[in-house]
């Protein structure tokens, strides 16, 4: 025991004698300023949601309230704090909540020392967001659930896709707040819906009241039918549908385009006052029906009534169609065919018990680093030399040095007797095309 304490004491000395940079204090102020700016926005949001509840509209319509009053109000709405953080600055969801569009559910069950409560829901016919709280007696019980299903009264799954794990830090926490986002598929939505999952060794079932009749009435459609082009690549916007929780934009790409567009970088709605609704942070960016047909999502402006509204786009990522294939020689550990800009290399191939790991290294430019975590380079499916199709089940991302200039994406392939070389397909690649697209919706 003593030599550990000795080593730790050496650290004490090091810490004592450590120098700190001169600009340290600036960083304190910067953090504080950021907090102040957000607090101003948040206060406006919180006040107006209280207004809806209290119905003392005239008194609350002014944005300025004394800090003491504000503190008192916040303390009276349990759970608001964590919901605000799980919305992560999505203005559309903020507006939905402000306009009384969040339903309190308070559905709670306890099994095996775990209490799971669905606190509230924001939903429309396009998606459903559930805010929940887990309370676990024992920290060692895993708080992650599996086999989630959302079904209608006929027992059909209505979930096209689901997202979880918005709150990062669950270790050591007995009480966890998080959210689930479900994008609906084309199956019929009914009242109620059923949500089930496995957690703490038990199966849980919740009946969720779902006001489908009301939701059906809540959408605004802007027909567009316009073809525009960026750097010679043509795209047709069919329509823009505004739901209370988000906006869905239908777009098709011309099959004769020489490039595959992989991601819109700044697609946004802008009104006459310069208010902008952009893509959702940490959410689904789009549902791709195929390479040439997408539904792209943005934050919703359903509850605002702008006099004019434009759809704008200036930058997109795209790759030459004939450079999408990446052919990898497993034995020589080389890329035989791939993007011609030379930024993608094969760093390593490692065979282990739990998978065949293919480590791709990608040199980023400064602008890419800002988007660093956004793109997964490869499609899940790949082929071997016999033409057989496979898919990999997961991948990890890491950075080679702290400046983040070289991105590694390490694919974990199931262990099989593949015939080399393997062919992967690029799904997203940071070469860009630019243009000035501005479509008037209203």
């Amino acid at each position, binding site marked *: *025991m003593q030599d*550990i*304490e000795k*080593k*730790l*004491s050496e*650290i*004490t000395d090091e*810490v*004592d004698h*450590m120098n*700190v*940079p001169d*600009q*340290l*204090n600036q*960083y*304190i*102020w*910067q*953090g*504080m300023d*950021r*907090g*102040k700016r*957000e*607090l101003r926005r948040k206060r406006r949001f919180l006040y107006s949601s209280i207004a809806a509840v209290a119905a003392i509209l005239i008194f609350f319509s002014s944005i300025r309230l004394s*800090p*003491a009053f504000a*503190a008192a109000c916040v303390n009276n709405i349990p759970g608001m704090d964590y919901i605000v953080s799980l919305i992560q600055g999505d203005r559309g969801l903020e507006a939905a909540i402000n306009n009384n569009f969040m339903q309190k559910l308070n559905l709670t069950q306890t099994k095996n020392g775990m209490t799971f409560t669905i606190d509230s829901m924001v939903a429309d016919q396009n998606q459903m967001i559930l805010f929940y709280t887990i309370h676990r007696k024992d920290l060692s019980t895993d708080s992650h659930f599996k086999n989630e299903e959302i079904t209608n009264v006929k027992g059909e799954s209505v979930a096209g896709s689901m997202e979880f794990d918005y709150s*990062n*830090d669950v*270790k*050591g926490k007995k009480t966890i707040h998080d959210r689930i986002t479900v994008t609906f598929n084309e199956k019929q939505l009914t009242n109620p819906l059923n949500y089930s999952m496995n957690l703490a060794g038990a199966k849980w079932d919740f009946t969720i009241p779902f006001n489908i009749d009301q939701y059906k009435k809540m959408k605004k459609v802007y027909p567009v039918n316009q073809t525009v082009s960026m750097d010679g690549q043509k795209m047709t916007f069919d329509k823009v549908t505004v739901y209370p929780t988000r906006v869905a934009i239908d777009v098709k790409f011309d099959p004769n385009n020489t490039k595959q567009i992989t991601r819109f970088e700044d697609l946004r709605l802008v009104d006459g006052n310069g208010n902008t609704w952009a893509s959702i942070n940490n959410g689904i960016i789009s549902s791709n029906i195929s390479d040439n047909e997408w539904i792209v999502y943005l934050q919703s402006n359903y509850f605002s009534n702008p006099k004019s509204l434009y759809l704008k786009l200036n930058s997109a990522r795209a790759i030459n169609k004939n450079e999408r294939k990446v052919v990898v020689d497993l034995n020589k550990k080389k890329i035989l065919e791939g993007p011609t800009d030379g930024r993608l290399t094969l760093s*390593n191939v*490692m065979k*282990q018990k739990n*998978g065949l*790991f293919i*480590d791709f290294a990608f040199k980023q430019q400064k602008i890419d680093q800002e988007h660093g975590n956004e793109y*997964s380079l490869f499609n*899940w499916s790949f082929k071997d030399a016999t033409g057989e199709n496979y*898919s990999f*089940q*997961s*991948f*990890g*991302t*890491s*950075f*080679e*040095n*702290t*400046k983040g200039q070289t991105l*590694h994406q*390490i694919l*974990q392939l199931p262990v099989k007797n593949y015939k080399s070389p393997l062919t992967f397909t690029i799904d997203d690649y940071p070469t860009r095309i630019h243009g000035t697209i501005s479509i008037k919706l209203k």
Partner: protein
Amino acid sequence: MLFKKARKRDSKAFSEIMTSYQDQLYKTAWRYLREEQDALDAVQEVSYRAFKNIHKVKQPEYVKTWLIRIMINYCLDEIRRKKRTVPVADVYEDLKEEDQDATTKLDIENHLQKLNGNYQLIIVLKYYHQYTLTEIAESLDMPLGTVKTRLNRALERLREQMAEGSESDAGYRKEVK
């Protein structure tokens, strides 16, 4: 008085409190992240989080410890975010290039940073920030006896981990279809 004002988010009061702890916070960040810029960014982030959440702190005696805890949590998240490699770490040790910019961490700190959050906090408070056991007890609102037990357990855990030798944790996040 300063604390009351800071809780109400009076800029001057809040910044005075944060400034008084800035060195300590920076040093903690640096022990975890090993790079000056990363540690500065960490201080900024913690200052931001503290400002947003200061209303949660009940008494002034708790502020410093609360800030250190936020800092540790942030640093652990940052380390995890940067090292999201799927393969087991030690297989890659000799294959990955030595990171030129960052200073290599002491072995004991690598193990320390893998300990349970509560154990980690007690060791950091005692050895990085020279809290007495009584101070730890007060700021964590815990009996002195519990602090002693917990510290011993933490040191024991640390000793066990170092004896095992390997970096067993694969702190990665899977992206699944």
